[in-house]
């Protein structure tokens, strides 16, 4: 019985990790269609903000909040200085954000050093049966991942801000004719997406440590989740995170981490072959 509980926990934790790292990109790529190759570095920056919080002596919750605000503001800056000139220009955005990614890694390495640093959070463990135990912090990660996704969805679905933001993304010309400042919504949306990635980085810092090159570990998984998710950013991320998290969780549990990661990418390839516009897309189906 405990084997089953632990197995279920592994799968849910794996799903949460996918959702956590993908939600920021879901906002930026899923909603704005901006391919941000620096998304991994936004996560890295969030981890470093969490480290800053720890150095300043803040309790972890405040460090995570600091990460959200810090990276969110950074995202707004990036949008104003770089991204806003490149809307609609896909390859240029790719190149620019790739350059941004290298710049961020280089800057952090130069000013903060290439060494690993750690953020420690004392949360304890829960025993499951006689053999197993689960780290309480991992349970917090699960909570935060789903809460972040749900909050985003609620923000975009139920608030006035969300309604206008959706309108801006769907039809900017008409929306601006109705008197909305579209640029403000682009900026805020990008900022929110960045803040979410910052949160992801802060939550990951205690379990993987901070290092300038850590972004590379996550950017591929985030893109795979969001692209496979399809048109509806949040439902898509949930479905994709669920699918890949389950695949990864099951294969890692049964075989090894390597097989888990291979499995995820194989499933993604097969899925994209049959549903080229993603899981939640309307296109490509008989309507």
């Amino acid at each position: 019985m405990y084997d089953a509980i632990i197995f279920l926990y592994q799968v849910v934790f794996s799903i949460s990790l996918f959702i956590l790292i993908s939600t920021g990109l879901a906002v930026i790529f899923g909603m704005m269609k901006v391919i941000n190759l620096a998304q991994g570095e936004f996560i890295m920056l969030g981890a470093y903000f969490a480290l800053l919080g720890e150095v300043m002596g803040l309790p972890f919750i405040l460090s995570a909040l600091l990460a959200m605000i810090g990276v969110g503001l950074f995202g707004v800056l990036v949008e104003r200085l770089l991204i806003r000139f490149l809307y609609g220009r896909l390859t240029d955005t790719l190149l620019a954000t790739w350059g941004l990614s290298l710049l961020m890694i280089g800057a952090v390495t130069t000013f903060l050093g290439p060494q690993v640093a750690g953020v420690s959070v004392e949360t304890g463990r829960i025993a499951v049966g006689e053999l197993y135990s689960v780290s309480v912090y991992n349970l917090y990660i699960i909570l935060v991942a789903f809460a972040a996704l749900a909050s985003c969805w609620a923000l975009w679905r139920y608030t006035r801000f969300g309604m206008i933001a959706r309108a801006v993304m769907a039809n900017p010309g008409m929306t601006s004719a109705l008197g909305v400042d579209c640029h403000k919504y682009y900026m805020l949306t990008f900022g929110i997406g960045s803040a979410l990635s910052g949160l992801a980085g802060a939550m990951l810092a205690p379990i993987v440590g901070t290092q300038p090159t850590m972004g590379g570990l996550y950017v591929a998984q985030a893109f795979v989740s969001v692209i496979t998710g399809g048109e509806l950013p949040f439902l898509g991320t949930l479905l994709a995170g669920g699918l890949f998290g389950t695949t990864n969780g099951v294969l890692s549990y049964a075989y090894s981490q390597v097989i888990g990661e291979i499995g995820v990418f194989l499933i993604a390839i097969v899925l994209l072959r049959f549903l080229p516009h993603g899981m939640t897309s309307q296109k490509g189906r008989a309507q």
Partner: protein
Amino acid sequence: MKAASGALAYASAPSVLATAGISQEKPIVIGNILDQTGGLNIYSLQQIKATAMAVDELNAGGGVLGRPLELVFYDSQSNNQLNAQYMTEALVRDEAVVVHGGVTSSSREVMRPIVNKFGGLYFYNSMYEGGVCDPRHVCPAMVPSQQLKPLVPHVVENMGKRAYVLGADYLYPHTMGEWIKKYTEEVGGEVIATEFFPLDVSNFASAITRIQAEKPDVVWSVLVGNAHNAFYRQYEATVGKDTIPLASCMFGIGREQTYLSADESAGIVNATSFHDGLETEAAKTFLDNFKTYANDDSYVGDYGELGYRGVKLWALAAEKAGDASADAVIEALPGTSFDAPGGKVTIDGQTNHAIMDIHLIRANREQGWDHLGTTEQLQPVDTQAVCTLGS
């Protein structure tokens, strides 16, 4: 001083050369190829500074054979492709008579053929799985038989007979896994499972679950690099060393205890050729000098000391040979002995590896090590079994 392109030139201070009054002959070029950046840099950072310190100390003492030493440093960025490129540059363009460096076995195996092609001399100042039999390769660091001979019996005796081994997925951990199994079985223990992880894996949840299911008496870690240090965090958060203790041949070498919490590192057992808590005169002098030189109070560790040891051994061999060129120094290497900070080190002519003291250590709660004991002058028997140079 010319600097290598794409690299950070850790050149010896010109002022030191001037005040030493060394004749303005052509300097002896020493190359140093290490990972200042990238996932493997945790091993190199102190070695880079220690190597530079050794060179500057030699220059302050009049150089080698009356000639100043010029150190040229290349950052291989944890990328084997750059190791190959910089070794070629060091030997061909910069005409280095000796090149120190390389961390992983894969980086070493990329560089050795180049050293042989251009007839150079290569000091691999890093612990590894042993067995390399190459006259142009010298390793002043531990090989498995030296590290595990005192460590495995201690682990089996104090922690238990059933071991679970985790390692990074490349040559060194695979080989170490086999040596751990051999030495464990020799003292009546058993390795119940061995698992390997690519260097960029940072999520060890499934492995930790499997460990819990198997209930071993001890978990061995041969995990390597930045991403893998996540294991120590996740292990302490989920299982805890008070439930199942950890032993490691790698922990501490990347100075992990300086960035993990006391809970996450305390209690891990290892064996090493040098650690900061060593109470000998040579060790304390080295540490004081290093902290002044590098302006850095943090833990130095065995990889730091190996950079220093390698340069000083080379210098002694060069003085003995009366000639700094690679072939002459190679002739003079056997029997060259140095009182290193970690103890007396002697080059074993049969293998170009070293006879040295090995210290048993346990991580404490102050980001340092407790000294558990020293085994003196261990021979590199595993490499001696497969290698006889000059035969």
